[in-house]
């Protein structure tokens, strides 16, 4: 494998999945790594996350800590969830359905956790 596409399709914070997926992506950066936010995974793109009071790691900080990780978000999923009218973190690149699928199949492997 020289490239991995990590598909995140569950909401951050409610489950350990997003945290686990970002950590797995972080250790994989010697390969080409894309994190694809899809379905409920796109909530991770919301700006202004502050998890101090909840007492868990800030997931958007992890994205900023690893610039090698390309992070894309599926526009139709964002639109459906009302996120286009919200502030989103700049690190996340918004792509349409076609481009999202293109990036998925271009990677050597796809991992959905």
């Amino acid at each position, binding site marked *: 494998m020289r490239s991995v596409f990590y598909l995140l399709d569950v*909401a951050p*914070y*409610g489950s350990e999945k997003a945290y686990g997926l970002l950590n797995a992506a972080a250790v994989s950066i010697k390969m080409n790594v894309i994190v694809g936010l899809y379905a*409920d995974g796109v909530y991770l793109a919301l700006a202004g996350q502050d998890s101090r*009071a*909840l007492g868990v790691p800030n997931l958007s900080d992890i994205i900023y800590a690893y610039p090698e990780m390309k992070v894309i978000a599926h526009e139709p999923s964002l639109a459906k*969830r*009302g996120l286009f009218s919200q502030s989103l973190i700049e690190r996340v690149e918004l792509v349409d359905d076609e481009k999202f699928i293109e990036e998925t199949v271009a990677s050597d492997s796809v991992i959905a956790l």
Partner: protein
Amino acid sequence: MEHDRQLHSDGKEPKVDIFLLTKPPFSERARFCLRLIEQSEHAVLYLAGDGVYVLLEEALENLSLARIVVCREDLEARGVQAGDKTVVLVDFYERLVEDAMNKESKLYAF
């Protein structure tokens, strides 16, 4: 308790429906919860966990809700903004329990 039972056996419904929602809006559970709210005459919605993402839904405007109560730490973690019509609480769980354990209320959790 006895009083509550009599209310039921008289065929009267509890006066308030308390809904605790912890799932994101496009989950089957959240859809089912919102469907139950539609038919409730007096519904209070408590949002915690991924349930706070429901605040981003325009459909929420159309629901007849007596009150929306939101868990502050869960809201902040997710970067969601609460609108004017919501009550954001630090002591969310104390208030939830108070409301939920009231004899006049019926509790649903999704």
